[in-house]
């Protein structure tokens, strides 16, 4: 489970259920372990929903070297994937660089590559951009927020992502509340909105 999930709002029952729902959905998309703190402000009577998450680390680009171990034997580089989540991405990146004929998936987590000069060359290939984890978290937050609350703004900065959502017109007051939540999450201070 995430280290900390705080849910506030006037609807006690709704807040309690949304806390469980948030945990389930984040767990489903595999992002719960990457989140340090989550704050959900739920005011369905307005309606105003603010969800802010602080990641454990600042998202960065991932290379094959970070998620797999490589070794070179004669003219073949063997890739042994240690994080299965990246397996499809690694395969796609290798196909793109060396062509399908030169890349063979030996079994679920092992790939052989012909045509690479050294294993370092394979290590440096990007499998996930810096934006990808942020996109995935935003996708998960869109699943958490109610479907009809369609007017949304996103605030991002370093390791904090905040989404504010309402049903019709986004007012400055709503953005101010979201800004306060975002700043407090970034500074690690107490949230008082």
């Amino acid at each position, binding site marked *: 489970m995430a280290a900390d999930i705080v849910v506030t709002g006037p*609807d006690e*029952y*709704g807040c309690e*259920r*949304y806390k469980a*729902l948030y945990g*389930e*959905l984040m767990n*489903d998309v595999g992002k719960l372990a990457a989140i340090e703190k989550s704050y959900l402000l*739920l005011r*369905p*009577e307005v*309606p105003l929903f603010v969800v802010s998450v602080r990641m454990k680390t600042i998202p960065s680009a991932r290379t094959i070297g970070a998620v797999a171990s490589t070794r070179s034997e004669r003219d073949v580089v063997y890739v042994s994937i240690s994080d299965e989540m990246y397996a499809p991405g690694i395969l796609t990146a290798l196909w793109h660089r060396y062509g399908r004929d030169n890349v063979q998936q030996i079994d679920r987590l092992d790939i052989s590559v012909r045509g690479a000069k050294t294993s370092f060359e394979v290590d440096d290939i990007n499998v996930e951009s810096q934006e990808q984890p942020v996109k995935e978290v935003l996708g998960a937050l869109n*699943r958490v927020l*109610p*479907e*009809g*609350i*369609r007017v949304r703004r996103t605030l991002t900065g370093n390791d904090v992502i905040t989404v504010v959502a309402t*049903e*019709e017109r986004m007012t400055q007051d709503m953005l101010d509340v979201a800004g306060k939540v975002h700043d407090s999450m970034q500074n690690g201070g107490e949230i008082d909105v």
Partner: protein
Amino acid sequence: MYEVIMYDGGIYRSDELFELIEDVGGVVLMKTRSAQMLTVTMSIPSEDRKVVEALCKDIGGQVKEVPLAGTEIAVVGPTLGRHHMPHPICDVAEYLRRCGAVTVVMGLARGRGKNTSQISLEETSIIDEYDACVFMLGNFKSCVETKADLLVRKINVPTVLMCGPKPEGIEETCDAIVHGVGRKASRMRDSEDRAKLEEVSDRVEEILADKKRSLEEDPPFVHPSEIKALLENYPPIDMCLRPAPIVMHLDGLRAKISYEEYHEEIENMLVYGRRLGDVCVIAPSKINDSSMLIRIKTRSQVAYEDSLKAVQ
């Protein structure tokens, strides 16, 4: 007095069961075969129940009570989006099917949101084709109360509202409320959830019992199962590949064949020496042309129409 029970077992020696149902004067309401497994919902005379049960056990099957047999129920969510489907709407639909009902899951086109959600006349007309409706809403009290007023109030068939918190002031918008189940992202597996599903089924049973009581005051001219027996051998229905080509309602049936193509032939069929078109109102379904609704007129309605014809 007839009783509705369900056989759940293998296909082995099932022909003996069908023969026995025919011998005791019963009717097969629904038959579903999946590989070597078979479920048969049947209506049989009470005095012959023991004989039928004994045969069911003898051929290796089980007999289950099906309080909702012979009904078609719509389970409706605000939209078909992943925020509202599939949990717990599909769990409710599945549970009602186990109780013998034929269920249909549907979502509204513009049911999302709090103040902007709406239900169209076409949608209410489609829901009104069913015997009852289970409407599912979410976790926030203010949203549930607003949306019940906007959406559920317009439905004319008996409705059970399912929602998370206990709403206030919307009792007149529906016939029963089951609270404690809102938006969920997982299946309803634990004992608390199963108890809620049972509660929904009980509430549906109660509201349908009320509807049955009001129908008994002036009953349909013929029982829907008699028209079902008549239509079963009609070639377009016999050859229809849809899972349940005829679905029984409390006051009629849904026949899943084209209205445009076949309504005249069906209207000219005879039941108790009368044209089906004279004792039923046959109309196309609001969903599309692929099915038609047969609503059986009440005895007093038929008698009144007879008296008018006699005057002419």
